């Protein structure tokens, strides 16, 4: 590979994209225009926005106690009860207070030109009357309802059941009627004040003032009716509640005063709230959400469109072959294109952020009133933070650039290329939304997850510019892992670009039946790469689908039998979910299941390795697991409890060994070192196949703590299979490793009784693990053995 060719291709592609009006528009013009346009739109919307008024009906308004809740003519709730002035206008009150002041109807024939106002008044009056009538209807039915319910409640056993049933039916019908009436009317909240309510309040106040004991009088309560499923009703209720709370507070104060009690009687704690958030911190909070999300989305779209043009577009325009016959290597071409996409992704993301930041700042500064003004003027993040935005944009853009380029090179037309945007965007958005949740913070584990690492790091930096030093620790793993992922994606892209069937994909009609026929007819000796991937996906999907079933089975297990049930479930899971798919696929899809599953007698030395290596490595495995525990998010409590039940000793040891050692050794080996590894090895790159199948083996274990060890172990097992040409040494190894793992669970109790165990192990804050000298011996012996193994010739498949 030469830098000269990469540079040549890079500069041509950049010049080419710069001459493309669409790309320029997407990358430069759109962000520069979009946000100011959005800003202007938002300003206009806020200016034009006025809340529609909602209708509140109050029946029995004449019985409202002092201080007055409504204005003179009973059409508004008085302003003073609202927090924000002017909110009273959002509630249109219809009350029966106004009934006495009926406008005098126009005397007939006074004038042809009836003033528009008075006729409008008349209309208004009629409308109010209708509304009130509906409200009264509702009140009538509610009273009836209440009466019926009381009757049923008081009914004794002597009452005939059919009478009760009839009454129940009446209740249902009435409830239905009330709902319909309420829904049809334009009433959002209906308030029913009982007759004599003001009298009742006054009497209560006096009773309290004279410290009389409570008498037998029935308590009176107004009734509020709303429909919480209706948004309008909900909003109106919120407003009414606010006003009524304040009003109620005023009544309460009066009552307390009359009774000579302190006004803060009802709030014994009566805390004082001190909010330390400064304007800029509030702003930081906003930016810390907006910036990472925008950066991710824009880096992604900024990469995708140029990538499709450079990949599928080149095929579509018929220039791909021109490029393929020039002396530049395929990898040089892909890297040149990758750098171009990277550049455009970065520029798009940063231009978008700058434009958005500037517009946001301007809008905030202009909007001098309203709630947004709390965000203040010093809203822009500090300069160092902005540099971090730029730095973290690079790994994100690199990942998206290589991923979308791989998709774009695979697609045969730009149209097909666009289709791949959706899944990519969905996954990315999912990860981003997760990052935005305030509870999610950067942990060592998250820092290694693609997209999430950079996004969370950026969020942390923006949230607390002073806490950067604590986050510095994460910069290295975040950047390293991100670049590793984009490197892998780039390798995948180059691999795509070297495959004839990808480069010269014909637009052939896909026929499911033909394809299945082809699968079964043109069997090859070994599974293909995609069949292996399919097998893995199938295993994962089955596991996912069975989670609920297994969980239920475990919950319904009889008390004391949990561990038994657990073991049986584990064995079933191994057989049905892991071994079966692989076995079926191997027998159906390959012509030589024996070679696929590597069922051959190996040389004795591999069997010996399979037997002794796990024993030698056991202290090392435990040490790794114990030392790395801090790295992973801790298990939820119920999972810990489930794991604990397995080791409660209620099951005989041979069952434990069968469940945890024998079954996995057979089932997992058949699937992962059998079918899946064979498919990967078909590419001819055995070491890549070993690493990849090991990683999948790790992922399959789902519990983060197990993933790491399982992946390493999976790779070693893969090596054993590749070198020995047989699956049996791997099964032996797997069995030994898991059996020793079971033993390790019992070490704590063995330390109590056995002196030997005590000398071999240490128990400290990490748990029980082996003595340092034992680990040293393990390392000293295991490394030469593994090196010896890897130096052996790769066996035929």
């Amino acid at each position, binding site marked *: 590979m030469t830098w000269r060719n990469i540079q040549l291709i890079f500069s041509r592609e950049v010049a*080419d994209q710069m001459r493309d009006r669409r790309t320029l528009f997407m990358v430069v013009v759109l962000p520069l225009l979009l946000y100011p346009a959005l800003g202007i739109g938002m300003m206009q919307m806020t200016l034009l926005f006025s809340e529609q008024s909602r209708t509140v009906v109050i029946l029995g308004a004449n019985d409202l106690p002092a201080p007055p809740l409504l204005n003179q003519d009973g059409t508004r709730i008085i302003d003073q009860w609202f927090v924000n002035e002017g909110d009273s206008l959002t509630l249109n009150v219809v009350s029966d207070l106004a009934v006495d002041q009926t406008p005098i109807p126009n005397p007939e024939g006074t004038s042809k030109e009836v003033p528009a106002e008075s006729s409008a008044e008349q209309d208004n009056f009629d409308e109010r009357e209708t509304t009130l009538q509906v409200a009264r209807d509702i009140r009538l039915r509610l009273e009836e309802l209440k009466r019926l319910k009381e009757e049923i409640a008081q009914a004794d056993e002597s009452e005939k059941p059919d009478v009760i049933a009839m009454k129940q039916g009446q209740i249902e019908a009435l409830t239905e009627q009330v709902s319909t009436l309420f829904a049809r009317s334009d009433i959002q909240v209906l308030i029913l004040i009982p007759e004599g309510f003001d009298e009742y309040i006054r009497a209560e106040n006096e009773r309290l003032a004279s410290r009389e004991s409570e008498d037998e009088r029935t308590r009176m309560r107004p009734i509020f009716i709303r429909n919480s499923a209706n948004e309008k009703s909900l909003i109106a209720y919120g407003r009414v509640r606010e006003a009524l709370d304040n009003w109620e507070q005023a009544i309460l104060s009066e009552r307390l005063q009359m009774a000579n009690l302190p006004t803060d009687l009802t709030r014994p704690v009566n805390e004082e709230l001190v909010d330390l958030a400064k304007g800029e911190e509030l702003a930081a909070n906003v930016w810390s959400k907006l910036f990472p999300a925008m950066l991710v989305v824009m880096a992604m779209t900024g990469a995708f469109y140029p990538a499709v043009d450079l990949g599928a577009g080149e095929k579509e*325009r018929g220039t791909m072959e021109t490029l*393929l*016959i020039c*002396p530049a290597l395929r990898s040089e071409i892909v890297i040149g294109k990758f750098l171009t996409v990277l550049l455009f992704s970065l520029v798009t993301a940063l231009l978008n952020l700058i434009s958005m930041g500037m517009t946001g700042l301007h809008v905030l500064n202009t909007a001098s009133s309203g709630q947004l003004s709390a965000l203040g003027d010093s809203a822009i993040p500090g300069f160092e933070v902005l540099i971090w935005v730029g730095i973290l944009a690079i790994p994100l853009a690199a990942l998206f650039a290589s991923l979308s380029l791989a998709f774009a090179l695979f697609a045969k037309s730009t149209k097909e290329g666009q289709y791949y945007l959706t899944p990519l965007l969905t996954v990315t958005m999912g990860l981003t939304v997760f990052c935005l949740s305030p509870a999610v913070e950067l942990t060592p584990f998250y820092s290694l997850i693609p997209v999430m690492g950079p996004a969370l790091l950026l969020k942390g930096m923006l949230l607390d510019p002073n806490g950067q030093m604590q986050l510095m620790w994460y910069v290295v793993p975040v950047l390293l892992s991100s670049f590793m992922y984009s490197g892998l994606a780039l390798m995948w892209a180059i691999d795509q670009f070297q495959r004839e069937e990808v*480069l*010269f994909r014909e637009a052939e009609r896909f*026929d499911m039946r033909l394809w299945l026929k*082809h699968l079964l007819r043109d069997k090859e000796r070994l599974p293909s790469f995609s069949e292996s991937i399919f097998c893995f996906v199938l295993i994962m999907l089955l596991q996912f689908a069975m989670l609920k079933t297994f969980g239920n089975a475990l919950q319904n297990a009889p008390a004391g039998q949990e561990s038994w049930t657990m073991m049986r479930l584990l064995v079933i899971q191994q057989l049905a979910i892991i071994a079966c798919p692989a076995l079926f696929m191997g027998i159906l899809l390959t012509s030589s299941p024996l070679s696929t599953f590597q069922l051959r007698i190996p040389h004795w030395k591999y069997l010996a390795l399979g037997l002794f290596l796990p024993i030698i490595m056991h202290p090392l495995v435990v040490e790794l697991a114990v030392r790395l525990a801090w790295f992973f998010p801790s298990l939820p409590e119920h999972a810990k409890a489930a794991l604990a039940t397995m080791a409660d000793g209620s099951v005989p040891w041979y069952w434990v060994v069968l469940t945890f050692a024998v079954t996995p050794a057979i089932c997992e080996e058949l699937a992962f070192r059998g079918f899946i590894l064979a498919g990967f090895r078909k590419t001819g790159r055995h070491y890549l196949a070993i690493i990849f199948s090991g990683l999948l083996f790790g992922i399959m274990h789902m519990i983060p703590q197990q993933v790491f060890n399982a992946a390493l172990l999976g790779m070693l097992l893969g090596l054993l299979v590749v070198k020995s040409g047989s699956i049996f040494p791997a099964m032996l190894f797997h069995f030994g490793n898991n059996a020793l793992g079971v033993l390790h669970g019992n070490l704590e109790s063995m330390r109590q009784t056995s002196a030997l165990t005590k000398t071999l192990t240490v128990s400290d804050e990490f748990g029980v693990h082996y003595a340092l000298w034992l680990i040293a011996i393990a390392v000293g012996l295991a490394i030469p053995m593994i090196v010896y193994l890897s130096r052996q010739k790769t066996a035929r498949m």
Partner: protein
Amino acid sequence: MISVEHLSKHFEDLKRGRVYALKDVSFEVQPGEIFGLLGPNGAGKTTALRILSTVLKPSEGEVIVSGFNVVTHPTEVRQNIGFMSGNTGIYDRMTGWELVEYFGRLYGLPEDLLQHRLHEVFETLQMNDVRDVLGSKMSTGMKQKVSIARTIIHDPPVLIFDEPTSGLDVLVARALLEAINSLRTQGKSIIFSTHIMREVEKLCDRIAIIHKGQILAMGTREELAEEHQQPDMEELFFDLIKEFEAEQKAIAAES
């Protein structure tokens, strides 16, 4: 100089299982010779030439171009060939000059030699009028000229033309054939594939008739006429294909 020995290429098809695009094809092309591949559409011409240009890999057989094996030394092979086909388009958003210059650089020509060659090629192909025209604005003839300029800019010893005249009008096609003819005198090994009899008759020193991935006959025009006792090329072509189809049918009937 090109040498192809027992070349086969197969791929897996959903409907038909394993399909041979080329089956045991062998031929040689000497310097100063134009070798014609004559065959109907889908005969395997493009597949064969794509293997020569290292874009596809052979399933079996050995292909040596200018002394380099296409499998083991693809970069050197590409360095030494000029390839032009209906599938090697030119960039829409580049001018003729820029495009030829770009490929010249990719072929690794030193800058002063490149500028010299550019002037020379643009002069001989009489294409100074397309110098500053963008690819998207060119007529088909202009594009074809730019393609030829790209093919010969690095002065390769081997030239491969895969149906270069398809879709061209008579005038442009004639000019193109003349340009190719003049390259013979420069001692290049040239492969020219087409399904048009007339072009082969006019241009080629030796001819291979290819059908369904197999070479049915090969030789100079005179040799072919003599061997099959058919002086008319077109008749000869149809006779051979008819004969082949009959044989295939017989084989199918037997099995």
